[in-house]
């Protein structure tokens, strides 16, 4: 019975129930043709915690302003030093552990950061299914639509979208091939490739299938900033993907995210540079993609499908890691945790060093020293903080590139302590 089913399944990969077009963005409709993928996709509502990742489902009393009855743990409460690092910036108000894709739109809409700053429509790029909305706003032109939405106030843009990331954002409806739909990534890759001597790179034409299995994630899991009054979303890769390349870029254009409240430093906030960090690691170098670990193949009868329940690989070690690594599950978990623990300890040292610098700077300022005198130390703070945050905000706790993450933390410590010395 089971076997018969399996032999049948083996022969007939999918039933075409509806005709998908580029105008349909509701995943439920796509799910009619691909019920297995859709079922898993819906499971991104699950919340399970790992040692350093996953997320915890914390009950909360809904209010009219924020109807969520479950949120994930607050990172700034877990480590109060973060509030000091981000003093004067919205992140010191509310910053939580990220959770599954199903929540992206509501978590963005409801974060208390929205109450502190007026955000632009640009935010939507990575928290909603914007492919169709962009095309509509741009009269068929994706990039034009992107530009239009960028300049809307957040809550106006919010009305134009209705789903978190959906099938249409990663797939071509006709062939189901992967595709890149995000202008930010298309332009970012172009700039990056140009820096390597490749002119007019077109990701949708020139990327290999295996590359696409990471690039679809690189659409959002990257460091970014909003450029100019048009609030254009830009991935700062024109000098390279390493932390020093990105900082050099920001320095060149004299960009800052905010001025640190206690010290006056022109500070930067690094944000989820998973793609950049992964690029420095041994897995990327070995051709292992994000999807290999976060959407591993699973067997459904005779079919092998990609697990669309995107989540921490530690919740699925056998499929995520054991295809390549013949070690027992417990051993693999222990390996990851050894790497993460080492990373976390060094991150804590770097955090302490930064706290020391901030408190020295603050005291110097209170003692009446001018910004001119403090400039060197402030610049060290900018650097130290960006490096530290680059690892802190990277959600793998060092796993995506262990040696590189430790190197960056080591340099961050050096910057913080040199900043202190500059105050002598």
């Amino acid at each position, binding site marked *: 019975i*089971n*076997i018969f089913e*399996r032999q049948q399944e*083996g022969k007939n990969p999918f039933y075409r129930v509806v005709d998908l077009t580029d105008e349909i963005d509701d995943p439920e409709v796509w799910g009619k043709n691909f019920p297995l993928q859709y079922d898993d996709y819906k499971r991104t509502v699950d919340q399970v915690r790992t040692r350093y990742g996953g997320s915890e489902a914390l009950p909360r009393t809904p209010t009219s302003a924020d109807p969520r009855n479950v949120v994930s743990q607050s990172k700034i409460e877990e480590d109060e030093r973060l509030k000091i690092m981000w003093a004067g910036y919205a992140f010191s108000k509310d910053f939580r552990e990220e959770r599954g894709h199903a929540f992206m739109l509501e978590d963005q809409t409801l974060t208390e950061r929205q109450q502190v700053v007026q955000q632009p429509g640009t935010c939507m790029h990575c928290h909603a299914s914007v492919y169709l909305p962009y095309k509509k706003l741009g009269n068929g032109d994706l990039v034009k639509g992107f530009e239009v939405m960028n300049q809307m106030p957040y809550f106006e843009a919010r009305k134009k979208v209705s789903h978190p990331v959906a099938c249409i954002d990663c797939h071509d409806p006709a062939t189901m091939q992967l595709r890149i739909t995000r202008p930010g990534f298309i332009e970012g890759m172009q700039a990056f490739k140009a820096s390597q001597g490749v002119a007019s790179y077109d990701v949708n034409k020139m990327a290999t299938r295996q590359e696409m299995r990471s690039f679809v994630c690189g659409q959002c899991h990257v460091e970014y900033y909003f450029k100019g009054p048009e609030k254009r979303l830009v991935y700062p890769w024109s000098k390279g993907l390493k932390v020093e390349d990105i900082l050099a870029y920001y320095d060149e254009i004299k960009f800052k995210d905010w001025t640190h409240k206690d010290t006056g430093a022109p500070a930067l906030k690094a944000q989820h540079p998973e793609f950049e960090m992964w690029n420095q690691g041994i897995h990327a170098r070995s051709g292992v993609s994000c999807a290999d670990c976060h959407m591993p193949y*699973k*067997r459904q009868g*005779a079919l092998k499908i990609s697990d669309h329940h995107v989540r921490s690989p530690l919740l699925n070690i*056998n*499929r995520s890691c*054991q*295809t*390549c690594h*013949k070690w027992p599950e417990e051993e693999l978990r222990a390996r990851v945790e050894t790497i993460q623990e080492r990373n976390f300890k060094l991150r804590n040292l770097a955090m302490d060093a930064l706290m020391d610098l901030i408190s020295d700077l603050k005291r110097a300022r209170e003692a009446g020293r001018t910004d001119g005198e403090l400039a060197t130390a402030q610049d060290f703070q900018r650097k130290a903080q960006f490096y530290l945050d680059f690892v802190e905000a990277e959600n793998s706790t060092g796993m995506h590139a262990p040696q590189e993450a430790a190197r960056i933390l080591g340099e961050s410590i050096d910057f913080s302590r040199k900043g202190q010395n500059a105050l002598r």
Partner: protein
Amino acid sequence: MNNRILRTIVPGTIIGIALGIGIYTFVYARGGSYLVNDPASCANCHIMRDQYDGWVKSSHHNVATCNDCHTPSGFIAQYATKASNGFWHSYAFTTGDFHEPIRIKSGNLAVTDNACRKCHLDLIEGIEGGHAKGSETVSCLRCHRSVGHMH
């Protein structure tokens, strides 16, 4: 019914059902494939497909079939392994109750490690330590895991 009877009947029934299912699969899904030497027959179970595809491209596909590496030498031992694996794999296949990706278990791993020696004994006599009677042997698979089929 008291516990003792339960303890006999329940497992008995389960074994009975298992046997039934196992035998059913053994026949229907060609679990008997285990008894022949054609590698393609192992791939009858689509579950063995990866290994089969890997084997086709491996350094050994001209010189060794699945059974050369996965059964011990000696007629009785060979068929005992085949029958036992044939039955349990059929059972596992039907119930779907097995670890994925499939992992070779220590018993079968030892069979395979020894299989290397069937063909390569001359070459490795030196490193096995002709003089080191009773010492531990080398595990070939520590370095050559992928000779039969890339995983």
